[in-house]
């Protein structure tokens, strides 16, 4: 128990420190990297709570996929820190006041009296043969199948949203359709043979009309 508690405090401290750094760093890339640290240490906290599946998913999905994309966006956007911080000093006093009052109020009511260890005794640790993933799946597909399905619809809407807001076809851009290129046949698609009566004088316009059709694609 002792070592576990020690680990908990170490990871909790790292999480808090990293979360604080996320919102105070000037460089957004650093902030994102600290966010990765916060995610990884909270994944460790979850593993300490025997929620191995959630911990690993947090690392895989958030750190592996979401944060990497986030990093790309942050690096590409070239965020201007100066404008972001323009009103910071002006709003600091009132913001800090509200934050302090809010934190105090919440602490008074939600404090150790209500959320202490006496109120929430530690659950009995599960045996080694209990599969975390299986338990989660059982709950997710039975008791919580209703919100689970709605979440699926939300994801569908998110896909539609992303496509609607970003996909644009510009009529003036030229693009190639590889499918059409592949389907081209040797004979009639590439060359058109035009029968011409033979003439003595060369007429340049005739050569132009016999140009290959393919170039318009």
């Amino acid at each position, binding site marked *: 128990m002792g070592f576990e508690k020690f680990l908990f405090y170490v990871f909790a401290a790292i999480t808090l420190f990293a979360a604080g750094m996320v919102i105070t760093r000037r460089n957004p890339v650093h902030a994102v990297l600290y966010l990765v640290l916060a995610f990884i240490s909270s994944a460790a906290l979850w593993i300490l709570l025997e929620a191995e599946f959630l911990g690993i998913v947090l690392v895989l999905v958030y750190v592996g996929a979401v944060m990497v994309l986030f990093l790309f966006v942050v690096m590409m956007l070239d965020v201007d820190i100066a404008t972001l911080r323009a009103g910071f000093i002006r709003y600091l006093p009132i913001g800090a006041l509200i934050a302090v009052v809010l934190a105090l*109020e*919440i602490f008074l*009511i*939600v404090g150790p009296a*209500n*959320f202490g260890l006496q109120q929430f005794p530690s659950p009995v640790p599960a045996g080694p043969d209990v599969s975390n993933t299986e338990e989660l799946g*059982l709950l997710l597909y*039975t*008791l*919580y*199948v*209703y*919100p689970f399905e*709605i*979440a699926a*619809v*939300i994801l*569908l*809407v*998110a896909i*539609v*949203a992303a*496509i*609607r*807001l970003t996909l644009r076809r510009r009529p003036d851009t030229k693009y190639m359709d590889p499918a059409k290129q592949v389907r081209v046949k040797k004979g009639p698609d590439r060359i058109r043979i035009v029968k011409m009566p033979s003439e003595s004088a060369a007429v340049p316009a005739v050569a132009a009309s016999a140009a290959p059709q393919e170039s318009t694609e």
Partner: protein
Amino acid sequence: MQGEFEFSAWVPALPEIFLALASMALLVAGAFIGNKGTRVVCYAALWSIAVTALILIGRDWGRSLVPGGMFVMDSFAGLTKLMILAGLFAVVAMSIRYLHQEQINRFEFPVLVMFAGLGMMLMVSANDMLSLYVALELQSLALYVLAAFHRDTAYSAEAGIKYFVLGAISSGMLLFGISLIYGFAGSTNFDMIAHRLEDMEAIRLPILVGLVFVLVGLAFKISAVPFHMWTPDVYQGAPTAVTTLFALVPKVAAMALLIRVLFGPFAAMAPDWGQIVTLLAVASMIVGAFAALGQENIKRLMAFSSISHMGYALIGVIVADEGGVGSVMLYLLIYMVMTAGVFAVILSMRRDNLAVESIGDLAGLARTRPFVAFAMAALLFSMAGVPPLAGFFGKFFIFVEAVDAGYYVLAVLGVLTSVVAAYYYLRIVKVMFFDESAEPFDPNKSLSGRAVLFVAALFVLTFIAWPQPVISIAYDASKALFIQ
């Protein structure tokens, strides 16, 4: 719970299941036909919404739950869902022509409207904090995209971004509140929370902290002051068809959700949340009335108008009994009809094939189009609460309930602010009837727009002749919340 999957247990959610499947089918169909088929998809969407409404009407409206207890169907949800579906139908019908005129005729529009409608229907049936949250997110996400639907204009993009960022903050507040409530009550289920609150007095105070955050999140959705800042910008920036949707449907759904949360799990704490809702109602009435006075853009004006209407409706919530909720439902019903009519006129405000939105553009409408001007005047008088019209009865029942319950100050304040609000409604009437004629609008070819305007004006004018059926529908529906 781990038995066989039985479809019969899910029958209470049949309308929603149908609407979800229909939206997905239309999405696939639209992806194949492409944007040429927007009109077809729109008509199919109208049919799907109508069939959903028929399924809903055919169902038994007694209280029933689905497995897991996260979805409840009762007559309160039934009436609200019918109102939502009617609103969706009107919006899709009126926007077909608008989408073509504005060249945003993408097939995603009706599909997103249907998904938003699905989210709203699930919202009013929520019986668990978890299902409340996911349903709210479903409708919000669809609405964010709709606000930015005309994304080539800066206004629409701005509306989308603003709505999204502020909506995300309010969702965060809501989730924080839900987590606190879960921590103290030990359950997210509404019935369980109600039981715990009755059994244990000690957890009421800490749960109140959570409830405050939940209320902030919901107040954002009904745009009650001081969480209204997004409303004018989003109403003005979004394409008018989408503004119509915003004004008509989500307000009703969010108000119904607010009522369900307050009267379901937190009924025992009515005196506590009553104070918070009083603050919201008073601030909404005052800000809605005074901030609208200087508006020149009619969409922006309607935004402030909707804020003040939500303030009046909240008075009925404060009364906190069966009659109070009944008067809110009646108010919302009348509000929907009036707003639909007004937006039918706003959608027809086009000159040289460009949409115009300023109040001055309505000048002399009485000469160029007397019938439209007359109908619009009736609707505006009704919104202002002038006696023989429907809007008067909406306000009247709310104030009567407030006086009955002893909330004299609120009732007086409501009357005073509606006098202030009357000024800006009557100003539009004055512009239409007495100002020098502006150029006439393009001829309005939209059959659905004219139909909506006609029905709305007829309802507003003849409500006094047959008020009883509508009133009893609204009051009967609210009884469901008080049978436990």
